[in-house]
């Protein structure tokens, strides 16, 4: 199983959570659906679709909570025949983050939820405050962009 991290501080908490909860797939993302770390996805584009949907579910349920006077809902859980999903948000110095966990019969929602609480606490301890960063791309990026898009659209 592959584990990839965009922000290195998330790696150790994620690996521990995966081991303890026996989760099959885990995605740590921002509320906008940007992935910070993941375990279990082989293709980046599949991961992006899962994170977009996870972020959307959290955003919609959060908006619904406000409609009925709740500040927010806690973790969301859906049970399928072969897989269950656990979806929850936590606040960290890096900002609000969302964790999507997909698990199978080898574990249970109770265990996932228990270890999620520890994972959220570990993320709060490990996360740095969000910081402005230096320029990323070279100023002459447009030639690369033109070439990439031409290849993408087969032109």
């Amino acid at each position, binding site marked *: 199983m592959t584990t*990839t*991290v*965009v*922000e*290195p501080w998330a790696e150790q908490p994620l690996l521990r959570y995966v081991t303890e909860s026996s989760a099959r797939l885990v995605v740590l993302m*921002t*509320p*906008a*659906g*940007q*992935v*910070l770390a993941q375990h279990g996805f082989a*293709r*980046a*584009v*599949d991961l*992006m*679709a899962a994170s*977009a*949907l996870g972020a*959307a579910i959290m*955003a*919609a349920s959060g*908006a619904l909570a406000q409609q009925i006077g709740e500040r927010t809902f806690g973790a969301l859980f859906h049970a399928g025949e072969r897989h269950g999903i656990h979806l929850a948000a936590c606040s960290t110095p890096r900002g609000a983050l969302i964790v999507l966990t997909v698990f199978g019969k080898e574990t249970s929602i109770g265990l996932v939820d228990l270890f999620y609480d520890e994972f959220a606490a570990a993320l709060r301890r490990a996360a740095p405050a969000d910081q*402005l*960063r*230096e*320029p*990323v*791309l*070279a*100023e*002459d*990026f*447009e030639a*690369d*962009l*033109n*070439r*990439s*898009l031409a*290849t*993408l*659209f*087969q*032109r």
Partner: protein
Amino acid sequence: MSLVNFTTREITCKIVYYGPGRSGKTTNLQYVYSQVPSDRKGRMVSLATQTDRTLFFDFLPLDLGTISGFATKFQLYTVPGQVYYNATRKLVLQGADGVVFVADSQVRQLDENIESLQNLQVNILEQGVDARTLPMVLQFNKQDLPRELILSPEELDEALNFRSLRTFPADALHGVGVFETLKGVAADVLRRLSQGGMGARRV
């Protein structure tokens, strides 16, 4: 906000296609999906009503390849255009790195375009973002319709483009202007990264 992985040298950006109902936002994504090789795209996710109107969003992940040494991925989203879906529009707009405003060129849709554009400004501001700093382009779609039914790009520019944004005439159904629009917004978003900005300025 664009996500940059300095370890694996990857960039992920979120682009939102915004505009009034039936202006062609989903059509843009469907055309992109139809043209891009399967190894460079993910499955297109459409959360739509039974009559194929966008209910929450459409989503298409694209792998642009390597740009300035960074593996660059774009996430394309559409919002539901119908007026009463504003709550979900706000959710989709959250964290956008760039916006394509898809205007319907039909004369009778001018008021809807203006209303949607104003709604976009309000929703951006509500997120605490200065709309003037958010990369954005305008697409004047349905330019293939008979002349007497539509406004010209010049007329639409006069009516809608008060920020002097880049504009692209299009016929998204047949792919005209779709590539150019995506290229335009992608360049604007990536230019911010080349200048050190990681997202639109908070107000």
